[in-house]
């Protein structure tokens, strides 16, 4: 089961089954101690981060940069998808994929939050021109 962990040096928060061996923020070794969800929420709540479409797009572009996929070069398609992603966040609480529907089973629906783990999907896996179901991410061409 995932738990909350706090770096005793710099208050970095980690949510996971086990803590990182080295704190990615202050680089101190064995620095994490388990904490309550309330404490984790209070600490992470100290930093307010708002994401508009531009910032989200920049984030997913950075995310894609070091991977074998890229954000779809079709900007019109991307614009439509971003509209859907943000409408879904406003109306349904999370950045759900605009091309799939939530089931109302929370654990199941977390799999639809963009970016989803599309690498395992049949629309991407083992396909040269693979893409995530909605098409926000496409496999990068080999020559690029």
């Amino acid at each position, binding site marked *: 089961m995932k738990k909350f962990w706090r770096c005793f040096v710099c208050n970095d928060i980690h949510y996971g089954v086990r803590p990182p061996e080295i704190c990615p923020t202050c680089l101190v070794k064995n620095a994490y101690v388990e904490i309550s969800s309330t404490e984790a929420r209070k600490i992470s709540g100290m930093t307010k981060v708002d994401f508009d479409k531009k910032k989200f797009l920049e984030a997913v572009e950075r995310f894609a940069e070091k991977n074998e996929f890229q954000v779809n070069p079709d900007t019109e*398609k991307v614009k*439509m*998808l971003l*509209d*859907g*992603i943000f*409408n*879904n966040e406003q*109306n*349904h609480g999370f950045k759900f994929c*605009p*091309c*799939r*529907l*939530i*089931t*109302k089973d929370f654990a199941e629906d977390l799999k*639809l939050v963009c970016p989803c783990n599309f690498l395992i*999907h*049949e*629309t991407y896996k083992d396909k040269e021109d693979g893409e995530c*179901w*909605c*098409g926000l991410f496409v496999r990068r061409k080999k020559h690029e």
Partner: protein
Amino acid sequence: MNKRIMFWARECPHCKAMMPYVDKLEKETGIKLEKLEIWHNEKNADLMRSYKPIIAPKCGGQLRTPTFFNTETNDVICGEVEYEILKEWALK
């Protein structure tokens, strides 16, 4: 009653891409599809969810758009397909 439903989403590019085919199909065959938008209409979303046991196994285990669903034959197509495939589904 035999109903042919297209579950679609307003901001889904695949749905947008299929709309001209749907128009062509309706004109050519006279078959009308019930087009139900699922992200901005909770009633339509609930209806799609109610068909999950039939639809999901044929769509990667999920509810995806667009989904073309025949309520009588349970024939399902999801995603962008060629016109002939859509027509074949509609004529079943």
